[in-house]
């Protein structure tokens, strides 16, 4: 088929789908439901294909059968493939319990990777970035930066106190927890504002597509 016609067809499809989703603002309708069904099917297909080429072909197949004489095959990957096949045993009720083995592998690997990864990135790095000289590394920070550093240090500490529920929030501890709540409220408010603005920019992008790419009203 002519490339120009294909491009036009793809453009009109995108416009049809965009308007279909927007139509939900009026109310739930057939057009929206069709777009939703397309989204579910296409998304599943998309990730199916992506995982197939990236992992099954790119990692497993190329690893076991490199095709390049200079590279030796990695037969250890066959264990991964066998465990993957065991996962499909779930479809056969009699031996469905075998699928627990690969599942246990996934759970164990996730736990092992997360234990180190999260502890390093979410705990160690965050604590290290919080415990810093308030006046800057060379002591020459501006008042604006000093206030910011104090807010970050005190705010992180008090917010953590708020999350500590093993001790009753009373007295000085309760006061610190109260400050922590205020810090968290600012965080939630900022996150809300940031989310709304990111959604707005997506909306502007779609309107720009409809009025520009599709209708050609914006150059």
């Amino acid at each position, binding site marked *: 088929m002519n490339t120009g016609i294909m491009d036009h067809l*793809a453009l009109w499809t*995108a416009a049809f*789908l965009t308007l279909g*989703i927007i139509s*939900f603002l009026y109310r739930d309708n057939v057009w929206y439901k069709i777009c939703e*069904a*397309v*989204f579910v*099917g*296409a998304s*599943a*297909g*998309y*990730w*199916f*294909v992506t995982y*197939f080429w990236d*992992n*099954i072909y790119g990692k497993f197949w190329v*690893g076991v059968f490199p095709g390049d004489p200079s590279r030796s095959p990695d037969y250890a*990957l066959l264990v*991964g493939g066998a*465990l993957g*096949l065991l*996962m499909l045993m779930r479809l056969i009720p009699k031996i469905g*319990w075998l699928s627990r083995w690969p*599942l*246990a*592998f*996934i*759970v*164990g*690997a*996730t*736990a*092992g*990777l997360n*234990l180190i990864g*999260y502890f390093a990135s*979410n705990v160690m790095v965050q*604590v290290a970035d919080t415990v810093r000289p308030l006046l800057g590394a060379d002591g020459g920070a501006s008042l604006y930066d000093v206030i910011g550093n104090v*807010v970050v240090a005190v*705010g992180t500490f008090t*917010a*953590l106190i708020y999350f500590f529920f093993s001790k009753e929030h009373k007295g000085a501890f309760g006061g610190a927890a109260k400050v922590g709540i*205020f810090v968290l*409220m*600012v*965080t*939630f*408010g*900022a996150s*809300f*504002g*940031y*989310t709304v603005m990111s959604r707005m920019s*997506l*909306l502007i*992008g*779609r309107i720009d597509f409809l009025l520009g790419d599709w209708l050609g009203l914006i150059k």
Partner: protein
Amino acid sequence: MKRTVPLFITFFVGTLLIVSVFLPPVQSMGENFTLFFDIIAVFAFFLGGGNLVRIHLDKVSRRKKDWGYSLVTLFGFFLVLASGLFKIGNAGGIAASVTASGSWFQTIFERVMNPLSSTMYALLAFYVASASYRAFRAKNREATILLIAAFVILLGRTPFGTMITAWIPDSLSALQVPNMAIWIMSSPNLAGQRAIMIGIGLGVVSMSLRVLLGIERTYLGEDKG
């Protein structure tokens, strides 16, 4: 066999992945385990995809309520699957990258997936705005702080926010709305985010330990084997 072996696998794999960070000789085994993880995860996804097809095929074959939408779902699924697996429209043939420009798969991503996902997320702007209009009330100090922070961030990221405080001299630029928004994001917001991240980190570490030590076993299901 049904429970002991999975518990052992979980302990062995998790512990080895932790040890591999500290002991270089075990590192290659850890890397292999990461590859196995990727491969097994794909099969788990295949299982999910298969289930999707099974459910929708059943709905279509039995002409259940709204079966037409299931047909559309199946059409979308198989169209993307065929165009991606057989690399239809790829200028370089089957050897080319699946995401090569001009391929059906890439076109579907750009003209179907992208518009659908970004419009879905964009729709949330309306619903979040309408929900916040109904729910946001400065009833107490905490709610007022949340409201002010959200308002400053929203205003600070628009040309209007820049315009209304443009008259403030440079010596007091910290009071200009866009700068206030930047300060909120980089100081109190950062503090709160950090506390949440540290909390999540500690939670994940303790949960991972529970899983590795076999205290947490819910992932094995209810069957007593």
